[in-house]
């Protein structure tokens, strides 16, 4: 069983692309459709890495990060933002919320794989 990556995005195609990229490299990918769903799935199965979008219904990415950082299992787990947002203000807010890194969409599958390998091996 490979390492578990939780991908949280309201876009089904983005979740599909992330899963397509990471599964082919041996990772076990869990999908969540928004922040609330992501939080529930993160609680039911502890992921080695969380990849989250920012703009989502119900709960956005920054709120999800804050909620995850409050959980003991996710205090030191890597959480990467994968979003179309690219302003410095948003990045600073992400860093303050506890994000480990910021990836701007569209992502290059190869680059995403390199980053994931670098972060969790």
């Amino acid at each position, binding site marked *: 069983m490979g390492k578990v990556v939780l991908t949280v*995005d309201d876009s089904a*195609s983005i979740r599909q*692309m992330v899963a397509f990229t990471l599964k082919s490299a041996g990772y076990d990918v869990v999908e969540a459709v928004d922040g609330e769903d992501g939080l529930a799935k993160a609680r039911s199965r502890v992921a080695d890495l969380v990849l989250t979008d920012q*703009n989502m219904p119900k709960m956005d990415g920054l709120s999800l990060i804050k909620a995850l950082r409050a959980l003991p299992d996710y205090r030191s787990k890597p959480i990467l933002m994968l979003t*179309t*947002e*690219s*302003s410095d203000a948003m990045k600073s807010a992400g860093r303050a919320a506890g994000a480990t890194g910021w990836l701007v*969409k*569209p992502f290059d599958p190869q680059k995403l794989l390199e980053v994931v390998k670098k972060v969790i091996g």
Partner: protein
Amino acid sequence: MRLSVGWTAIAVLAIAASTALCAWYLAPWWRVLAIFAGAGAIAWLAARGAVSGAAVPAPAADAAGGRSELVALLAELAELERHHCEAGSADLDRVGGLLRQAIEDLLAAFAEMNRHIQAQRDLALSIVDSMATEANGPDNVSFAEFVEDTSRSMGAFVDNTIATSKIAMGLVETMDGIDQETRAMGAILGEIEAIAKQTNLLALNAAIEAARAGEAGRGFAVVADEVRNLSQRTNQFSQEIRQRMDAVGVSLTKAHEAIYAVAAMDMNFALHSKDRVQSTMARIGRINARMAEAAREIDGHATGVASGVNGAVTALQFQDMTNQLLEHARRQMALAREAMEAALAGAREGAVERARGQLREHGERVARAAHPVGQRHMGSGDVELF
């Protein structure tokens, strides 16, 4: 009819704002209309002194009549705008749905294609590996090594055969020498037989002379008989030797013929076999090399296709960006409707300043509505680890 300048300003601004917002998101060519609407409104206000907010006094009856007509016009415009916004929103939903379905199908197709390409690539790599280290039995030798070993063994076999053939040819020469020596010995035997005959004749003559001599020649007659006996025995031995040598000669001839035939036959067979094996091995080697090259080419093409799929996956993310832009457009249309409703409510209630304030507030909300997509191209985005 004279209208209040304040109401006129609100009406013109509301019409211009709603027309501009709807036109901007419905179709690109409507943007021209939006620009003209905005410019026309500003020009009209400037001409009437409305921008400064100066009010022109008017008779109360005219003002009331004008306001009710303007309210009715605004209501019509609000209805029209609602209809346009709903139609535009439905179109945006449809575009979003079509895009989502198309992209999901495309992604599934690319994933399947990638799976096949990966399988093809693994197969090609296994062929290349097998060319280098195919397990041919317990020795685990490569195909190239097998070809080389076979060629080397065949060469050693042929060399041994040629050496044997050369030895056989040497034996043939030796047999020729033995044959010559045997013939020479036959000639010598002939000489011995002639001497024996002559000795026999001499002994006979000696016996005759001894008989003539009488008692004095008795001893000589005994010697002559013994000499004659010796010559006859010599002749007998000589004939036996000749018979044996004839038999040896026949055997030597048979051996000579057999060795010569074997030597000549083996040499031709070996040389022929060597040529054929070398030719076959060279052909197998070429086929082997071509197969390995083809497998490497397949691997190269598979890598190229995988890279193409990678690029396609990056490009297909436009759907997510487009979806967010469509959502942004929907929000802007909703704000335009709210602005229109606020202007209409203000006009109905006669609360000009409140309506103005609401319009300003809407303008600020429109300005604050952050654009969710900053990218203007489909190149992959930045990666930053904190």
